[in-house]
């Protein structure tokens, strides 16, 4: 059994850990509010963008001549996956959930004999993926310097993706991120951005016929690259809200666990102290009796 001194030291160390996790929880909670707010504020833009694109793409009569970003290259040999994770750890299953989702997708692609290319955004994802898929990672982008997700960063990622598409480096592009549902639930998402997935376009039947200036093709080819950046930005916003939410609940759990541990250790400490006292008393009493 551990000595009294050891127990005392352990209690002190668990208590100081608890202080840290508590502080981290508070910080995460404050950041979460901000991140959530900006995620909500950012929604109108991506929704409007989507609407316009839906209206436009249904207006295009000749699917053959549609821009490749919309209709795809016609092949599905090379897959590009953009895996978006955080730059910092201690946020529960946040990163692992994305990685798990991504890995199962990767193995599916590879088992079909397709070629895989990976871009990681955020250093944690890169750390976890480079062990298994190190040779597949073609780029690693990290925004450690920027405090909040901003459009400028998203645009950078978007430009890289579009450049690679322009050079025919891949056929299908999917982004992986965590969708923020609430503080305890974040859902890992795989969203295909190239070619654009228009499955739900039938629901939005067109009421208004638009006039286009210049023509649809030209607007589309201008708009689609922007849409890529917008989708990536949306993913970044969702991700940062999820990261903070996940960290908050993880730290909340850690604080609670530390509290339980302190209680347990304190009981143990008190018991062994009492045992020592009792032992001494017995020694004294039995010594006196033998006289």
């Amino acid at each position, binding site marked *: 059994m551990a000595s009294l001194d050891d127990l005392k030291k352990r209690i002190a160390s668990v208590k100081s850990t608890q202080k840290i996790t508590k502080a981290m929880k508070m910080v995460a909670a404050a950041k979460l509010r901000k991140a959530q707010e900006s995620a909500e504020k950012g929604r109108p*833009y991506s929704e*409007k963008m989507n609407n316009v694109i839906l209206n436009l793409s249904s207006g295009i009569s000749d699917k053959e001549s549609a821009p490749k970003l919309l209709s795809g290259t016609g092949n599905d040999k090379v897959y590009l996956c953009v895996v978006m994770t955080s730059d910092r750890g201690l946020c529960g299953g946040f990163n692992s959930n994305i990685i798990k989702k991504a890995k199962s997708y990767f193995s599916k692609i590879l088992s079909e004999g397709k070629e895989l290319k990976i871009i990681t955004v955020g250093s944690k994802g890169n750390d976890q993926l480079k062990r298994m898929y190190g040779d597949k990672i073609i780029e690693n982008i990290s925004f450690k310097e920027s405090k909040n997700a901003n459009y400028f960063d998203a645009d950078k990622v978007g430009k890289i993706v579009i450049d690679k598409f322009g050079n025919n480096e891949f056929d299908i592009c999917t982004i992986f991120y965590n969708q923020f549902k609430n503080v305890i639930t974040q859902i890992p998402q795989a969203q295909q951005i190239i070619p654009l997935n228009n499955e739900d376009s039938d629901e939005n039947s067109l009421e208004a*016929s638009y006039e*286009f200036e210049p023509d649809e093709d030209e607007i589309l080819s201008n708009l689609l690259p*922007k849409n890529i950046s917008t989708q990536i930005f949306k993913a970044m916003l969702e991700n940062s809200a999820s990261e903070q939410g996940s960290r908050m609940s993880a730290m909340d759990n850690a604080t609670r666990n530390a509290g339980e541990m302190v209680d347990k250790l304190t009981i143990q400490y008190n018991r062994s102290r009492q045992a020592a006292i009792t032992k001494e008393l017995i020694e004294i009493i039995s010594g006196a009796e033998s006289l």
Partner: protein
Amino acid sequence: MSEEFKIEIVNPEKLFFIKEDVIEVIVPAFEGDMGILKNHISIISFLKPGIISIYSKSYEEKFFVEDGIIEFKNNNLSILTSSIFNLKDLSKDKIDNLIKVTNEELNKSELGDQEKFLADQKIEALRSIN
């Protein structure tokens, strides 16, 4: 009959500007400036760098945009743009700086025709503010 319609300017971070009582909006559409009044036909177009002017009975607002898409439908004008500044917030130094940066970009050789045209437009628009 009222002559007013609704305008929304959205940038990726937030709803930038929203008003329900504008009378006329002039936007720098790609093929030339376009004035929009109430009951304009539904239209989608995109913007080149320039000035958006918004007029209503009581106020007048001017914004500098670098790019964007406009959609007008049912007397709702939506402008989506990734970079927008209120002219009031643009100091002369800032404008000069923007012109300088754009000029440097323009001098890089690998620009395509369209990019060159857009950069030209940007400089022109910025100069016209001064």
